[in-house]
């Protein structure tokens, strides 16, 4: 069997369905039985991974005459592939968990969250792929037994590169040339606000300053927003805590902070929280440090404030 013979088969198989990974394993050992098997498989394309992988192994064992040393490779490959397959699912689960836990931090916006796990997952696959073999869930690699990590495995062989190989190559080069991209999967988490009661009429928001620092926003701006949204007033005390009039729970403050984060911190274009807020003649601009986009954000408006009893009393005293 020559590599050239294999090629068309693969292409065909790919046309059938997306069970690419399994197919490929089998393709490496092409014989008629196998083709038949593939056909039955396509008839029932939902066959489970395990079963298929097993099949592949069995096929492989009786087959190998011409590809003596290829076999060792093949088996290894199969194992590796299984690892990737299994690894894949946990990664996705993690992602889901991530989104759930996200509800807690202010990273906000599910969408953003989803992106990240994806990237992480992809990277994980990449890594796995590199140590084991080339990129994520690759077919190919029938030829060489000696792959060093990151080698473009199709080079030196006369087969074509695959899409996945090219893709991982692109990402690899991208990372090599832009090391700062690698670190950017950090999530923008913000410590939960520490809110406690002070007496019966006031609440204390102890870590405002810290939270503002993490969001890279002026405490004044954040506090102004808090007051406007909560319809109240307050002040910063000697130990940098915010004393708010009225009774508020941590959850409530957290909600308002989330809104603030979405409105005045996250970039709507790329969801990055790496942004700068500037004021230019009465207008606030949010400029993204990651993608460079700029958008205007509305100034904080207090809106209507109902007159409270205190205010009435004060007015009367003044009169």
């Amino acid at each position, binding site marked *: 069997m020559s590599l050239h013979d294999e090629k068309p088969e693969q292409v065909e198989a790919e046309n059938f369905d997306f069970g690419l990974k399994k197919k490929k394993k089998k393709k490496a050992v092409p014989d008629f039985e196998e083709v038949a098997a593939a056909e039955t498989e396509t008839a029932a394309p939902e066959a489970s991974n395990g079963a298929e992988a097993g099949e592949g192994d069995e096929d492989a064992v009786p087959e190998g005459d011409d590809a003596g040393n290829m076999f060792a490779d093949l088996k290894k490959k199969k194992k590796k592939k299984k690892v990737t397959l299994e690894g894949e699912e946990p990664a996705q689960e993690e992602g889901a968990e991530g989104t759930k836990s996200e509800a807690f931090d202010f990273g906000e916006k599910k969408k953003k969250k989803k992106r990240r796990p994806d990237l992480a997952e992809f990277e994980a696959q990449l890594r796995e792929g590199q140590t084991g073999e080339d990129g994520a869930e690759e077919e190919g690699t029938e030829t060489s037994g000696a792959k060093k990590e990151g080698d473009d495995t199709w080079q030196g062989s006369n087969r074509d590169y695959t899409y996945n190989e090219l893709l991982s190559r692109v990402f690899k080069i991208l990372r090599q040339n832009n090391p700062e991209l690698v670190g950017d999967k950090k999530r923008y988490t913000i410590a939960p606000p520490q809110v406690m009661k002070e007496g019966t009429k006031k609440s204390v928001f102890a870590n405002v300053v810290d939270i503002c620092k993490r969001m890279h926003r002026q405490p004044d701006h954040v506090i102004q927003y808090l007051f*406007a*949204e*909560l319809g*109240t007033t307050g002040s910063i005390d000697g130990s940098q805590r915010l004393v708010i009039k009225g009774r*508020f729970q941590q*959850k409530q403050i957290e909600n308002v902070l989330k809104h603030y984060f979405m409105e005045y911190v996250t970039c709507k274009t790329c969801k990055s929280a790496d942004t700068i807020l500037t004021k230019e003649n009465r207008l606030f601009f949010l400029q993204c440090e990651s993608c460079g986009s700029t958008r205007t954000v509305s100034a904080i408006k207090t809106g*209507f404030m109902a007159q*409270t*009893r205190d205010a009435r009393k004060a007015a009367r005293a003044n009169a």
Partner: protein
Amino acid sequence: MSETIQNLASYDPFADTGEESDLKVQGYIHIRVQQRNGRKTLTTVQGLPADLDQKRILKAFKKEFACNGTVVQDEDLGEVIQLQGDHRVKIQQFLASEGLASKDKIKIHGF
């Protein structure tokens, strides 16, 4: 055809959007809460369309949410409805279901 042209004409993208003016101009209805003494709260509805009779709306609110309330005249913001208790979500639903405002034009503030 003519419609689109009219649409173009009615909006001047270079107009000055002052901070004060867009309080009203944006056409948003702002629903806010405010804490009073103890566990009591006030809900205020600001920015209802001027062609609506605020008193009638207030009456409907009072009946619907079983609460008291008033219409307050504010110099800058025009008439504002004040209700006792926190009825923010209910107000939004009410306004939307009665066709008085679309949901995306209603902004709920507060926690």
